[in-house]
């Protein structure tokens, strides 16, 4: 991760190159993503696939990100997007209570996404699927690195109060309509890092993540997951995140 270059008193806006080592996912998590529970004996041929997938990721990924701090009013405009959000969005209850907001887009780069597609087209499904899992988890991990980066930035600017915490939220999840990406892209212009948006508000390269980093008292990030869309959700990653910040 690059050092923070911002000047005191100015809002953060920066392009960042991630180091592969800081986003490389744990092999056991990759296998779990492939439906292999932790603790079971992994067949040799799957271990070989995992090693190959990780190796290709290391050689082809070009992880980059762009981040920009925004005001509450600026984010409100981004959040509303094209006016397609579900009526009761979790984030709508969180961000107004925040002290700091930053938009971000990150990508694992075009090469890794096109390698995955090529493997599937050529019938190399097992390796393609393994590489897909590695890249997806690496992209998730890069979001966490961004959370940490923004927290460090706020800390360095002496803007972070005790008990404050940064978490990321993304369009397409928890009721925030995917069309929210349009205004996010208009503001951030992530074409600079090679990420574009199509008419359906979907990003290219595929292994990219967009969202908002919300900094504030950790209590603002804690909610009951009993929203209408929570019933259908099988991710439940929000529970892990809430557990994580509650222990800090």
């Amino acid at each position, binding site marked *: 991760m690059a050092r923070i270059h911002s000047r005191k008193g100015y809002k953060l806006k920066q392009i960042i190159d991630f180091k592969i080592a800081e986003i490389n996912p744990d092999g056991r998590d990759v296998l779990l993503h*492939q*439906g*292999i529970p932790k603790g079971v004996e992994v*067949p040799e*041929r*799957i271990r070989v*696939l995992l090693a190959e997938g990780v190796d290709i990721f290391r050689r082809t990924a070009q992880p980059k990100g762009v981040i920009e701090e925004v005001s509450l009013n600026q984010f409100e405009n981004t959040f509303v997007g094209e006016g*397609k959000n*579900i009526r009761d969005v979790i984030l709508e209850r969180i961000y107004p209570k925040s002290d700091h907001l930053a938009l971000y887009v990150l990508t694992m780069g075009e090469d890794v996404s096109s390698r995955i597609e090529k493997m*599937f087209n050529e*019938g*190399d*499904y*097992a390796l393609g*699927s*393994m590489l*897909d899992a590695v890249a997806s988890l690496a992209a998730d991990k890069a979001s966490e690195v961004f959370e940490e980066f923004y927290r460090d930035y706020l800390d360095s600017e002496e803007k972070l109060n005790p008990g404050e915490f940064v978490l990321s939220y993304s369009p*397409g*999840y*928890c*009721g*925030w*309509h*995917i069309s929210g990406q349009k205004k996010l892209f208009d503001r951030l212009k992530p074409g600079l890092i090679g990420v574009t948006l*199509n008419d*359906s*508000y*979907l*990003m290219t390269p*595929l292994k990219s993540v967009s969202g908002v980093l919300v900094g504030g008292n950790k209590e603002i990030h804690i909610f009951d997951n009993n929203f209408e*869309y929570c*019933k*259908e*959700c*099988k*991710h439940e990653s929000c529970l892990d995140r809430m557990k994580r910040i509650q222990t800090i």
Partner: protein
Amino acid sequence: MELLDRISSTLQKGEDEQVAELTKQAIDENIPAQDILDNGLIAGMNVIGEQFRKHEIFLPEVLLAAKAMYAGMDLLKPLFIKEKVPTQGKVVIGTVHGDLHDLGKNLVGIMLKGAGFDVIDLGKDVPAEKFVEAAKTEDAGVIGMSALLTTTMPVMKKVVELLKENGLEDAVKTIIGGAPASEDFADEIGVNAYGFDAGKAVELVKELTGKK
């Protein structure tokens, strides 16, 4: 037949090059292509599908077997030119409009092909109209839809509505899958089936098409 059993068991181990060699040997020995397909390749994939359903093997092993299956199929295809490649039926699949996550959809497609279905893969970010249009033009019996993003799920409902508008709800069955989908959601929007995983999806498509 011993050679066909060897094709089946080699396929189950995911040995694609060996499956291709054995398939070639079977062709050279004048074993009918239909027999090689049914009793070698599909027989092997059926075992894999069943083992996966019972959680005896893992996803990567299914995918290795699928690659081996296609290694054999590629050699058989030219032999089916006069008579078309035999099929269990046509299934149109895709990831719904607004969603680019296609890994689950790809897996279902691979396993459906392995079970002998003709799969029309529309790819990702597929509008509701395109699913229905493809089902009509391809004369498909099933539409399979996948989504990962909760916000894209309404497209699945739209496909069901369009099928009704076109009077196709009896001729074309629907099945959904993906992380945010569920049995309850399938019932709510009038979809015929919900496949929790790829193995289940294949089983349900067989039921929907009367092949089971």
